């Protein structure tokens, strides 16, 4: 069955002490779907995204990647092996890139495949070339991160995630730390991934981009999904008052 969800979040809840950050959220993402998560600061977008690869474990609820439960309760050692295997299938791109500054671009991309997939150096180099071609940075293969612009760093970070051939890609405000003139080059790479039907969950403050690229938009506020639907509906005709308020603020100054 092809439309079985790749990501299935069931009744996710998360608290920090008495602060409930996520309240009973369920979300299913099918193969090839592109989901945007929008919402005000502190609404729990990052927490939800980071629960998907168990970077921020849930307090309760389940996360499934196809037929594997990601946040399975296991003894520490078994859990380690389990989660490391699971994470290889989930690419993640961070606001601040998190490239490894002591490694050049090639090694940033090939480190994990070499260590985890046991591929040879030749195969790894071919993989780096392939992924860098995709993000248009082949000429930077021998550079160090400190020699790249923010936009280039983020494109390398995307290439690094893609090199693991993930089933799904998570983006947490991939362009928020960039100078405005560098945003577009990263957006283009993400659009290209969308055209290749990569499954993606994208936390973003860029409403225009969400509208262009995504199949579904989730609006979160105070730990709940207030409203979700296709971008035409959420952006043009939202049903909920809170969504309208949020969009009024955020669409101001954007076309």
């Amino acid at each position: 069955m092809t439309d079985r969800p790749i990501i299935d979040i069931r009744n996710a809840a998360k608290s920090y002490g008495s602060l409930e950050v996520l309240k009973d959220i369920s979300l299913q993402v099918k193969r090839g779907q592109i989901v945007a998560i929008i919402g005000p600061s502190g609404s729990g977008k990052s927490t939800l995204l980071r629960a998907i690869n168990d970077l921020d474990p849930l307090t309760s609820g389940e996360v499934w990647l196809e037929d594997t439960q990601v946040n399975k309760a296991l003894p520490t050692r078994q859990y380690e092996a389990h989660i490391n295997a699971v994470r290889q299938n989930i690419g993640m791109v961070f606001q601040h890139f998190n490239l490894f500054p002591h490694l050049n671009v090639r090694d940033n991309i090939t480190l994990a495949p070499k260590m985890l997939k046991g591929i040879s150096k030749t195969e790894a180099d071919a993989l780096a070339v392939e992924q860098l071609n995709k993000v248009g940075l082949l000429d930077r293969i021998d550079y160090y991160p400190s020699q790249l612009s923010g936009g280039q760093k983020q494109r390398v970070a995307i290439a690094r995630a893609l090199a693991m051939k993930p089933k799904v890609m998570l983006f947490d405000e991939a362009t928020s730390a960039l100078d405005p003139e560098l945003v577009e080059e990263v957006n283009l790479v993400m659009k290209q991934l969308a055209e290749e039907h990569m499954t993606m969950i994208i936390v973003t403050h860029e409403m225009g981009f969400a509208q262009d690229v995504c199949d579904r938009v989730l609006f979160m506020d105070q730990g709940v999904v207030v409203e979700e639907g296709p971008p035409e509906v959420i952006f043009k005709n939202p049903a909920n008052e809170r969504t309208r308020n949020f969009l009024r603020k955020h669409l101001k100054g954007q076309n």
Partner: protein
Amino acid sequence: MGLDFSVVPPFAGALFTGALWTIAITVSAAILSFFGGIVFAVIALYAPRIIRLPFRLFAWLFMGTPLLLQLFLIYFGLIQIGIDLPAFVAGVIGLGLHYTVYNSDIIQSGILAVDKGQYEGARTLGLSRMQTLRKIIVPQAVRSVIPPIGNNMIALLKDSALVSVIGVAELTLSSQMAISRTFRPFEFYVAAAACYYVINLGLEAGLRRIERRIQLAR
């Protein structure tokens, strides 16, 4: 009796050999203390309590007692329990472990200063904790603390003079032997000081080179 530096050249060969021993001891102890410092730092930060505690005791001993005493203990003391080390080896171990403890402190702070995003970046790719530590965290930590480690290595060079007391014929002991033949302490101590100074320059140049080489990769 005036000063007369013409007494030095006949002993140039002995001093040169002494200088080579000083370099050999310093480099060996530096290497030991560098890798030892990494191992100690990782243990201090991540090992279970049961392993951490003996290491902490050991660190405290090496920081809280004179290096001279440690050298005596390793060279003369260990013989009593059947460990008879050559003086050079005892000197390298003593100096090396002593500076291991100091380097470990610095490397620990370097590890703690590595951005949390580095750990997350590696873990999301599927690397294990150990792989992340080995390939991402420690290499970055070490790069960031090269300058203070370098200062330790310069201190180590100077402390290497202490191994003269267990009979390693390094620079200080070589000059003392020349003095006992000529009764010219001033000239030979100045000559030895000049040698230390030159070695120090070499060491600093080496450290600068390392810093320059890793400059991009930080």
